[in-house]
């Protein structure tokens, strides 16, 4: 890669000021008018785009380098596929092996419109369900394509040897999941994510052996290199030697997953972070709907201050378990001592039609409400019972064990309580982030040459993701969509020009400065303790229920705490060699900045929709009330030194009629 020095005039002054001081303030910029989706009937759009996309001559592909950061379902499948196509790929992950990306933990399954059951499923129905499930805040064009491509994913995975569950006839088994009325979820026991990821990982390792993919494990991306207005590389830290490295390329793909760990406690893996996408955001990539977070209702509650993460219990438990809390506030009797008429089966009471099976966001909020009333159970009163006594009486213990045995075992392992004898305790936990970097139909961000795939982008789930749809989206992006659309971009690579030396230097200096600053503070609190406190603020004020007051409070507290962090954090050791405390501190620093943008976004969106519940916007029954008149748009935030700028992408619904959800 050749360098060219920049002339004096061309050098831009680095931004010095911090975001605007007024909490929650933002400016409104130009709306986004073109998402690059082709026009015409929705079912033809992807074909049209594929046909129009420019192709790269096979002989030229070898000369083009693509960086893919992340090896989860999205990044692993993308890197493998780009390698198969003949590009030179450089792949990065922070774990010691690409096989350990957080996708490995997905349990439930993956949706696909195969209609193998003949139960009335179709591409159109999956499209419809996903748009509606997203509470009308996702793009029709993208979602339709996702549903179309879903069928190819299953074919691909089966051909790779992914051992999906099968029936006695040897055909694939499916189940209905997350309230869907058709059976379209393919699964591999409770380990679907693991098996799909191993499929992608093996395809990736095959390309590494073939020499098309160069793998860099234990490397953390800390900055992106933008030159001539295009994404041209990344700055990474070798986590073993501490060396800061620059890697240049013709295009960069971020597949770095979700940012749920901004809440400290979540079901995400400990290393999940926002650093890669946040750095890109500060270099010009808009951030779409940052406040859209999914909170899963059935997780094992927090047991103490030392808690480091939360564990998800499959949603399927709500098929047979009954959710309740004591009727009376502060009733601390053992559950068995609380007579039937002193219990409140609140979901069955409030939602007689759906009962314990109401959607995730509704079940989560109801649990929060009863706990806020002082009727929660377990340590700190932050839990509700999920009781299988009736199911055991009705079906027998054996039948319950057959269905849920492994989940019961997992629960007992963590809590030390036997759920066959005492009701489980569950509580909602942060699980998934629908928000992420804004991308167009081609999955390209507002920085040309920077593509974003998987949970890291904002695209297909609107304000609420349906169960079993994240795996589908990650693999759709990685195996099928990106490899086509990135070709269209790379076909023009001849005109990209050399990377400016100053742009590389600037990115490297930013990384080095941040590391030096963190190590220099030498204060009195650990990065984890700040992270915990930040998470607490986010959970209390920007969690399941948000109000103008709570968000304003968060917007006051976060900058104060961030300030304290930068003056009082203690990071031991030095920048050479493995330093896990330094890695963590760097991630926490970025979470602080993201947290603020999330609150700004949540404050500006005064409607409730999907996982975003603004207490001011509810109907007479306390249900979420959308405001389509004013908020049927994607909020794409631009970072500027003077505070965030909002760009609206209006959403049109030509096919699916906008309606208000109801589960009474």
């Amino acid at each position: 890669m050749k360098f060219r020095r920049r002339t004096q005039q061309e050098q831009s002054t680095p931004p010095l000021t911090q975001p605007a001081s007024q909490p929650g303030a933002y400016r409104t910029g130009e709306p986004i008018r073109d998402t690059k989706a082709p026009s015409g009937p929705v079912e033809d759009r992807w074909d049209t785009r594929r046909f129009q996309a420019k192709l790269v001559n096979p002989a030229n592909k070898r000369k083009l380098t693509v960086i893919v950061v992340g090896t989860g379902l999205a990044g692993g499948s993308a890197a493998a596929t780009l390698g198969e196509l003949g590009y030179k790929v450089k792949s990065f992950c922070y774990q010691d092996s690409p096989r350990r990306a957080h996708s490995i933990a997905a349990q439930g399954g993956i949706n696909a419109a195969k209609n193998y059951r003949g139960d009335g499923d179709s591409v159109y129905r999956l499209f419809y369900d996903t748009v509606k499930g997203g509470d009308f805040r996702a793009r029709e064009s993208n979602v339709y394509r996702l549903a179309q491509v879903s069928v190819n994913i299953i074919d691909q995975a089966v051909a790779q040897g992914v051992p999906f569950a099968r029936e006695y006839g040897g055909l694939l088994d499916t189940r209905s999941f997350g309230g869907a009325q058709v059976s379209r979820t393919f699964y591999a026991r409770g380990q679907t994510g693991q098996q799909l990821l191993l499929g992608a990982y093996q395809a990736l390792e095959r390309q590494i052996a073939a020499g098309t993919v160069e793998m860099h494990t234990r490397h953390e991306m800390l900055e992106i290199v933008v030159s001539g207005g295009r994404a041209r590389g990344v700055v990474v830290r070798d986590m073993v030697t501490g060396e800061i490295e620059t890697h240049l390329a013709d295009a960069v793909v971020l597949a770095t997953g979700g940012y749920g760990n901004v809440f400290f406690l979540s079901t995400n893996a400990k290393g999940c972070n926002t650093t890669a996408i946040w750095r890109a955001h500060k270099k010009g990539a808009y951030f779409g709907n940052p406040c859209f977070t999914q909170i899963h209702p059935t997780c094992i509650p927090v047991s103490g201050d030392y808690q480091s993460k939360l564990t998800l219990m499959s949603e399927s438990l709500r098929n047979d378990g009954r959710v309740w809390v004591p009727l009376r506030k502060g009733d601390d009797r053992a559950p068995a001592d609380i007579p039937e008429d002193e219990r409140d089966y609140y979901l069955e009471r409030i939602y007689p039609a759906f009962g314990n099976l109401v959607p995730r966001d509704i079940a989560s909020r109801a649990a929060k409400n009863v706990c806020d009333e002082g009727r929660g159970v377990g340590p700190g009163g932050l839990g509700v019972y999920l009781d299988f006594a009736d199911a055991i009486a009705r079906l027998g213990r054996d039948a319950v064990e057959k269905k849920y045995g492994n989940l019961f075992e997992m629960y007992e392992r963590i809590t030390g309580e036997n759920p066959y004898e005492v009701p489980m305790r569950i509580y909602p936990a942060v699980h998934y982030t629908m928000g992420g970097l804004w991308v167009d139909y081609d999955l390209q961000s507002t920085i040309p040459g920077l593509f974003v795939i998987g949970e890291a982008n904002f695209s297909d789930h609107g304000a609420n993701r349906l169960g079993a749809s994240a795996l589908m989206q990650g693999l759709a992006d990685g195996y099928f969509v990106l490899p086509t659309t990135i070709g269209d971009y790379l076909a023009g690579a001849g005109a990209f020009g050399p990377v400016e030396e100053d742009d590389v230097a600037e990115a490297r200096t930013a990384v080095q400065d941040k590391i030096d600053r963190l190590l220099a503070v030498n204060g009195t609190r650990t990065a984890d303790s700040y992270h915990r406190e930040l998470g607490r603020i986010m959970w209390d004020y920007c969690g399941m229920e948000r109000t103008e007051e709570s968000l304003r409070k968060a917007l006051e507290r976060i900058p104060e705490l961030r300030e304290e962090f930068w003056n009082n954090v203690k990071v031991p050791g030095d920048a050479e060699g493995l330093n896990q405390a330094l890695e963590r501190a760097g991630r926490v620093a970025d979470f602080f900045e993201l947290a603020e943008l999330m609150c700004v976004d949540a404050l500006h969106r005064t409607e409730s929709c999907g996982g975003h519940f603004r207490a001011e916007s509810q109907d007479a029954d306390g249900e979420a009330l959308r405001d389509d008149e004013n908020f049927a748009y994607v909020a794409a935030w631009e970072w500027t030194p003077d505070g965030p700028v909002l760009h609206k992408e209006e959403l049109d619904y030509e096919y699916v009629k906008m309606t208000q959800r109801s589960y009474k």
Partner: protein
Amino acid sequence: MNLTLKIWRQSGSSDKGRMVTYRVEDVSPDMSFLEMLDVLNERLILEGDDPVAFDHDCREGICGMCGMVINGVAHGEQRATTTCQLHMRHFEDGAVITIEPWRAAPFPVIKDLVVDRSSFDRIIQAGGFVSVPAGSAPDAHAMPVPKEDADAAFDAATCIGCGACVAACPNGSASLFTAAKITHLGLLPQGQPERDSRARAMVEQMDAEGFGGCTNTGECTAVCPKGIPFDTIAQMNADYLRSASS
């Protein structure tokens, strides 16, 4: 609970390393083993000491990143459990616990309890896949798979690549890990075309990495958190012999 920990400390690959004793107090029985180490590390940081480096990520037993030899047993004494799933209620108050890294020549120590397991990735690179470029797959129902085969393949496919089998084996063999992949793909129709070449290449790579041979001690299955069946190794040997004779 109050505990005494004897932890392997090694600053880098060139350091010889040694056991260092730490006291941890007020440990809650509901803590996980790694949370107990988090508490120790927070304290070490504030006291100006170097915290103990250890690998972990999912903390729910599926990513395969964690792994320590606890009181001489890989992942500790509780069966079918990864280190991250181990909870303190299984230890006695006042206990002395030794914590060491995986020890095997092909897993060099990077720092403290962190080892380099990239040899496992290279074994997969040698042939642990089905060669099927994206977009070239036939319909998923084109080839039915008998349920028993699919279930058995799944059992082998649940390996998380943690390396406990190697750490437990007196010969430092990676046979269980390698056999799990050979068996998973070898049981499925999709894996047949490359079955022989796969077995040969993976076994040869395993040897080239310096892993020892299998002498049927069965220590690997005993510590394997996913209960990978021991008979996968027989399957691997059969496939390897067949490939060598063909």
